[in-house]
């Protein structure tokens, strides 16, 4: 889970890292009030979980409250990288001497924590890495041994920073590592990290935490509540369904992440447009199928539904009953293509066949993944 800039900065502040004084605002009037409260020049920054805010016009300087109001009026409601802006962060402008880059990364390849520091802050780190690979110092940290002071020293020297910054850099990284481990982050990136009168101030922050660890961090889990803008994703989360919206017209439901991903691919290969990823998980019962279908059909774009079940712990007859219950309860009339294989497949197929014989004309049974995908694509196009 990615945090907004202001949320990440709260976590940095909690470990003693200096951040600019600022306020979050959801309206131009509140942005103006925040600017008056802070006094002096401010920067108004769109809070959005994507890069390229600056280039998109999502960051504006304002000398006084009226200018902050105008800046917020322009930024709120903008769409940056397809995401709507609902909040701005109004911060006091910090005059600085130079800008650094600092980051800690959960490196799944190296199986260590990777610490990075560069004197070339304030620009896209991928550009720096490509054009000046030597400008980024890197140190790997063994998670069992934890952070050592020498890690900070090495970073500062290898990044070529002046000697006065040695102590502040060591102090900053020790705190950054504390935040990284305490909040179980996968990424903490501070860019730019400003040098202000010999002190280091985090002007921006990218903070990604591990979803699997949120049970230990209820205050961070709570931060997530405002992240989900898409109504289907909000509904899915409330009901404990693993759902990702993709945007096509064939609603897809299966068991197991790998099989569902594969199903999306097979549908796309057959010329169709998958609407979503939905994994009902292992051992789903009748009621869980109904819940999953409620989430899936709440997307108005969906015109056809494809079930792809390979029963291991999941029983095909439970799935078949769930489909019929959903049709009865929700009055689903759009076509549903069903492919059931594995545990209790004969019982499951018999239940569907009986329903078709009894007049459920929107049900279609297929034996193979390819056959099911082809049928779903044809139905979505209205060919069948």
């Amino acid at each position, binding site marked *: 889970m990615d945090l907004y800039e202001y949320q990440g900065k709260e976590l940095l502040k909690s470990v003693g890292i200096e951040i600019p004084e600022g306020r979050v605002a959801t309206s131009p009037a509140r942005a103006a009030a925040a600017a008056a409260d802070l006094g002096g020049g401010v920067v108004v920054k769109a809070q959005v979980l994507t890069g390229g805010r600056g280039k998109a016009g999502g960051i504006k300087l304002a000398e006084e409250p009226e200018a902050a109001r105008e800046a917020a009026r322009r930024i709120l409601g903008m769409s940056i990288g397809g995401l709507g802006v609902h909040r701005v962060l109004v911060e006091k402008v910090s005059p600085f001497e130079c800008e650094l880059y600092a980051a800690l990364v959960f490196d799944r390849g190296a199986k*260590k924590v990777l610490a990075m520091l560069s004197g070339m802050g304030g620009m896209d780190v991928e550009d720096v890495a490509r054009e000046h690979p030597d400008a980024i110092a890197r140190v790997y940290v063994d998670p*069992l041994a934890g952070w050592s002071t020498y890690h900070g020293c090495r970073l500062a020297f290898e990044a070529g920073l002046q000697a006065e910054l040695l102590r502040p850099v060591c102090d900053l990284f020790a705190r950054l590592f504390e935040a990284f481990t305490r909040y179980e982050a996968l990424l903490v990136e501070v860019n730019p990290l400003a040098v202000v009168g010999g002190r280091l101030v985090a002007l921006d922050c990218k903070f990604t935490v591990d979803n699997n660890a949120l049970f*230990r961090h209820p205050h961070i889990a709570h931060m997530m509540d405002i992240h989900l803008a898409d109504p289907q994703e909000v509904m899915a989360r409330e009901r404990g369904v693993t759902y990702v919206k993709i945007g096509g017209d064939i609603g897809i439901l299966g068991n197991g992440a*790998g*099989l569902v991903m*594969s199903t*999306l691919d097979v549908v796309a290969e057959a010329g169709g447009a998958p609407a979503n990823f939905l994994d009902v998980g292992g051992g789903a019962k009748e009621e869980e199928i109904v819940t999953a279908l409620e989430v899936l059909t709440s997307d108005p774009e969906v015109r056809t539904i494809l079930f792809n079940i390979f029963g291991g712990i999941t029983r095909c007859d439970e799935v078949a009953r769930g489909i019929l219950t959903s049709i009865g309860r929700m009055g689903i009339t759009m076509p549903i293509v069903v492919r059931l294989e594995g545990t209790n497949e004969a019982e499951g197929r018999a239940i569907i066949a009986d329903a078709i014989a009894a007049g459920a004309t929107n049900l279609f049974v297929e034996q193979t993944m390819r056959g099911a995908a082809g049928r779903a694509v044809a139905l979505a196009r209205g060919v069948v």
Partner: protein
Amino acid sequence: MAIVIDERSRIVVQGLTGREGSFHAQRNRAYGTNVVGGVTPGKGGQAVEGIPVFDTVRSAAEATGADVSLIFVPPRAATDAIYEAVDAGLGTIVAITEGIPAHDMLRVFNYLQCRAVTLIGPNCPGVISPGKANVGIMPSQIFMPGPVGIVSRSGTLTYQIANELTHRGIGQSTAVGIGGDPIVGSTYVDILARFEADPETRLVVMVGEIGGDEEETAARYVAEHMTKPVVGYVAGFTAPPGKQMGHAGAIISGSSGTARAKKTAMEAAGMRVGIDPTEVAELVAQVLAGR
């Protein structure tokens, strides 16, 4: 032969008294697997359908001669269970648990580095050596003994492909689900090396998905070290970047970790790559037939 587990493996189930643990332990035993005991602290002396329960892994291992642990412990206690099994001297640990925090697993992985332990998982369906032993949650009825090794990050995709093979009369030596998390105990490379050394395995199917670069690393290993043919598959061509697709490991960040990059790396390593599970089975049949 087979790899990781076989008919001689003696299994102790950590979390045997839980719902999942007792259900699958009995299924595994019914398949012929030597399920010799279970561990639940505080429930030592009890039994689950005749399987004795112990308070600690050490006491279970001493009493039963167990050499494999199968873990069904919930996420917040799962790494504790792994450490206990390692310290009790069990050589093979299969962790089914889904949802273990990544930082916990990062420490476990580094703890295992100087120890001679094979950890499979977590967030995996386990290991089956058809006709010999089933350790985990895989549906044994879709497998049959034979010459194909399977290594996969995904449970249901493993079933789908094994089923397609079995329908064609092609059996499997061992199927290993290495798990869908960012940090797992055994990588593709670890398992490929064991299949290469296993005289019963003639061909390996490697099933990948989006996220990380383990498939790319494995493809290089195939090119440099494998004499046996490896048929590949990757799921997730239609996955949008930045979205987690069910498995904690399946997320594309930046330009790396895409299905296309993985397929390209596999093909560059000389592997034949199927476009869907059906084509994977067709390719396996062709390679085994010498075409």
